[in-house]
């Protein structure tokens, strides 16, 4: 999934699957374009999680198993909580780029912000709609990143005594 550009998956799945002659509503490019995005990003995110799980030191697993916890209990209570905390920032990056890559789906038909802005630009011969589209994107991404920073700072403050600045 990760070896092929996102745009190509959107074309392949978004045009290809409805092309086999499905009935409405299963021939919608919006549906299949979204599925293409979900599949590619699913692959990216799985990789981030894998790296997060690997980054938890083996000694944590040893400590947990030595107390008699099973493999799955160790994963659930010891490894995953630490891994998830570590992968939140990279996951936020992925969320932000996913949110931006939604614009790619417009290439196979559905009208989203970018495409609508293009239409309005053509209508009024004025670039302001693009600026408006950019602002709408920023209105979503900036609070997202700020929230992540806040969550991380809170966690760090709670669990550690001193903080190097």
């Amino acid at each position, binding site marked *: 999934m990760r070896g092929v550009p996102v745009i190509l998956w959107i074309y392949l799945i978004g045009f290809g699957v409805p092309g086999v002659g499905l009935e409405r509503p299963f021939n919608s490019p919006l549906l299949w374009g979204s599925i293409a995005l979900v599949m590619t990003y699913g692959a990216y995110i799985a990789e981030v999680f894998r790296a997060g799980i690997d980054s938890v030191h083996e*000694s*944590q697993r*040893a*400590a*947990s*198993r*030595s*107390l*008699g*916890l*099973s493999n799955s*209990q160790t994963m659930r*209570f*010891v490894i995953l*909580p*630490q891994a998830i*905390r570590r992968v939140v920032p990279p996951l936020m990056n992925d969320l932000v780029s996913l949110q931006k890559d939604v614009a790619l789906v417009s290439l196979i038909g559905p009208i989203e912000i970018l495409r609508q802005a293009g239409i309005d630009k053509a209508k009024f011969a004025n670039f302001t709609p693009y600026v408006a589209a950019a602002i709408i994107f920023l209105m979503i991404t900036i609070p997202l990143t700020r929230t992540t920073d806040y969550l991380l700072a809170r966690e760090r403050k*709670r*669990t*550690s*005594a001193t903080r190097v600045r």
Partner: protein
Amino acid sequence: MKLELRNVRKSFEERVVLAGINLEVNAGEVVSFIGSSGSGKTTLLRCVNLLEPIDDGAIFLDGDEISSVGRDPNPVRRRIGIVFQSFNLFPHMSVRRNITLALTQVVEKSADEANEIASSLLKRFGLDEKIDAYPDQLSGGQQQRVAIVRALAMSPEVLLLDEITSALDPELVGEVLDVVRELKGSGITMLIATHEMNFAREISDRVCFLASGLVAEQGSPTQIFSNPTDERTKQFLRRVQAVGKT
């Protein structure tokens, strides 16, 4: 309760770490393992806790072979606790949760019972103020004492202490060793891998010197430290004496 190791062998790749260890430990006995780095002390303890599968031989607890292949290690680990050199507390959990996790998940005690056990043990070792702290907020000595409490909370019959003071600043070693001294009085069986020769001499009922993956010499602390017979033991003790650790 008796722990018995019969011809235990363990290799990592080509390197033989345990070359046929034979050992019997009686209930309530405190046995120390000394020897140079890489002599197999840590591996021996990890094998007893089944964290490392052994290549050959057998380990018996109460005459029951715990090392057999395919056996569920979890019930055994409830009876054998281990404390690690690097503490290995769970950094995302409070001290309380570190201690109660296994109590609630493995032996299925209620949250109240588990809390009760945690606070009384912490009190016993003077850590009751730290119950809601996180590991990173504690000193190394406090962390290691919490790690000991975490292992003790499961009421193990055998406690394995794997160089528990090696990662500590010298002035913090004492408080951790005090905990072990108190435990000796409680009658728990302890296997201790250590570089603290004075401590091994003081606390042990028996000292084993490991060399080349074998118990090269064993005996009472007085015998090993004052009257070693094996040439390698003598050399080792001379070397540690030279750096002032005896």
